[in-house]
């Protein structure tokens, strides 16, 4: 059975090694690539392969060298309630922060794309959280959340509300750290939307105006489809960031109270660099990579079909 040929598929034929060909140009190409190959191999690929191997071995301790244990590390991980707690937290964290951050980014981009006074200042204000280091952001928000004399409680106090302890209560702590992530990420994603909005040719708007399309119809039928590739790009990044950014957890809660804000990468740090449990940490790393790789793959394969790259 033949699959239908698509226009964007590369021409079929014999596989060609990249850079196979005349001597000196090949050497030149490899030399130019060498620095990045070395860096990538040394800091990404080799460590990943080592981690994969380590995940099948026990943790070496002092005089006890590590030995092969098969799948034991994953079995242990599956029996670790804190792992499941962190996985649940992280899923909630991703589901809560991504739609909000992306939606907010789009709204902000549409807003500052229009002709409004003080546009440059507004764009800069929206982008500022992105420029700040996460540690600084976490410290600012730590002050916002401080019970009694923090910003939120001072504002609440004006209306006679009682002091709150959002980070110190397991039922609100995760939401509190999620708010920080949304605040930090939205500005970053806005920049991509803004760039994409500037790429939309103005004649489309003029044509739509002549046709008498409403602003909403124009957004739904023209702007949104044209933003689809950017949205896909942003979604992939947002998912990765939801599993990768834990700096504020260190500053604000340390994963507490009682693991209420423990996320996968934070748990990984605990296993790896607090408990020195190399075996468990390696197994969790593999889990994390598999999760992220499959999410990205699903997004590219399924969402990619619906995205029009022009």
């Amino acid at each position, binding site marked *: 059975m033949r699959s239908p040929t698509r226009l964007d598929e590369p021409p079929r034929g014999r596989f060609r090694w990249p850079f196979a060909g005349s001597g*000196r*140009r090949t*050497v*030149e190409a490899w*030399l*130019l690539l*060498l*620095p990045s190959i*070395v*860096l990538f191999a040394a800091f990404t690929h080799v460590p990943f392969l080592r981690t994969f191997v380590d995940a099948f071995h026990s943790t070496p*301790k*002092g*005089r006890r060298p590590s030995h092969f244990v098969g799948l034991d590390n994953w079995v242990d991980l599956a029996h670790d309630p*804190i792992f499941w707690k962190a996985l649940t937290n992280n899923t909630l964290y991703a589901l809560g922060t991504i739609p909000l951050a992306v939606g907010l980014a789009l709204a902000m981009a549409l807003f500052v794309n229009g002709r409004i006074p003080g546009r440059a200042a507004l764009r800069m204000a929206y982008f500022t959280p992105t420029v700040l280091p996460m540690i600084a952001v976490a410290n600012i928000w*730590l002050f916002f959340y*401080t*019970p*009694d*004399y923090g910003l939120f409680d001072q504002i609440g*106090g004006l209306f*006679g*509300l*009682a*002091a709150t*302890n959002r*980070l*110190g*209560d*397991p039922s609100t702590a995760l939401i509190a750290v999620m708010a920080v992530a949304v605040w930090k990420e939205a500005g970053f994603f806005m920049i991509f939307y803004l760039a994409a909005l500037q790429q939309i040719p103005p004649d489309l708007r003029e044509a739509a105006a002549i046709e008498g399309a409403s602003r909403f119809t124009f957004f739904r039928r023209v702007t949104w489809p044209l933003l689809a590739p950017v949205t896909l790009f942003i979604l992939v990044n947002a998912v990765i960031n939801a599993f990768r950014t834990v700096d504020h957890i260190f500053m604000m*809660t*340390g994963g*507490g*109270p*009682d*693991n209420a804000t423990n996320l996968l990468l934070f748990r990984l740090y*605990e296993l790896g*660099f*607090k*408990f*020195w*449990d190399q075996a468990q940490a390696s197994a969790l790393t593999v889990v994390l990579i598999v999760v992220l790789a499959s999410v990205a793959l699903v997004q590219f394969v399924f969402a990619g079909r619906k995205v029009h790259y022009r």
Partner: protein
Amino acid sequence: MKTTRRTLFAATLAAGALVAGFTPASAETKITFYYPVAVGGPVTKIVDGMVAGFEKEHPDVKVEAVYAGSYQDTIAKILTAVKGGAAPNVAVALSTDMFTLIDEDAIVPFDEVAGKDAKAWFAGFYPSFMANSQTGGKTWGIPFQRSTVVMYWNKAAFKEAGLDPEKVPATWAEMREAAKKLTKRDASGNVERWGIEIPSSGFPYWLFQGFTTENGAILMNEEGTKVAFDTPAVVDALQYWIDLSVKDKVHPAGIVEWGTTPKDFLEGKTAMMWQTTGNLTNVRKNAKFDFGVAMLPAEKRRGSPTGGGNFYLFKGQSAEQQKAVVEFVKWMTTPERTAEWSIATGYVATQPAAWATDKMKAYVADFPQAAVARDQLEHAVAELSTHDNQRVAKAFNDNLQAALTGSKTAAQAMKDAQAEADRILKSYR
């Protein structure tokens, strides 16, 4: 010749990326010293100054002092370096990391290297500081930046509440009663000032160990292989802490952040707080009111855990380096220098001899609060420390937080902590 030049350029790029840094060899004895700074800033300068002083008196020894971040960062850096085969020669790390460092086969005891007068040297320190530094008859750590938990109280708030500002609560019952009077609410019932704050973020076990000790419980054995988290004395102590916020409503609900308690105290948002002696200098500089420092109140007895960092001597160095390290550690812990260090930082001077120096006497005469920590040492116990310490501590911390935030009862939380600790420690028995 365009291509050749480009090839050359590419080759240079490649070479640049590949060349690693070289370190020149030197003839003098060189030792690397990792140290943490919990509070940052001025302490780094003090340590660097001390190192420079040592090098001046010992021209044949070169000390490379590496500021390694917080205690947590420091132990992470040390163990990474050990695993990479480039261990430091000497480091200051938490006294509770002793078992971890022994299990990783990273350190050697000071006994043999220190020679004949080793016993006399060790005997110079307060026994409660040595409790966390010795196991199996060997001395693995030398006390340096040590602290303990004390109670700070706001004398102005005491006066305002109609209490005698010079009489600090000495028992749990008195503390509860005083806290009730000190808690101030506005017309709509919102709290303007709490009676007491005891931090419970990060490492609640340390402050909780104050309660357990006072209630007559000892949390672990000297070998670091057994813990006793689920005894009635421990559960009752936890219940008292929970009741302060839930029943008596004199202590904020939920988790109280370690870092903001001193600020709360300085802002007058709490009338009493339990904190490390390490905050003494900070509170003294910034308090706009009269304050007092007291031993923690007693239930069955007085008590507080010790805390802070010890010097450790690492494996895999030459005999000259080991000798240089011991010389360095001895130099850093002479009574004179211990006194200077204590005055500059607020850490508790680790030896009776240091308190007998003229400098220290003059300091205490001017600032009597500094002596409270010393007087409490005779009631102090070793900080919770076991094999696989961080994991056991986390099991304990998580359950303490669960109980303090109401998701578990005190008894259930301590039962769970005990079960998890037993599981972790099984392989060390």
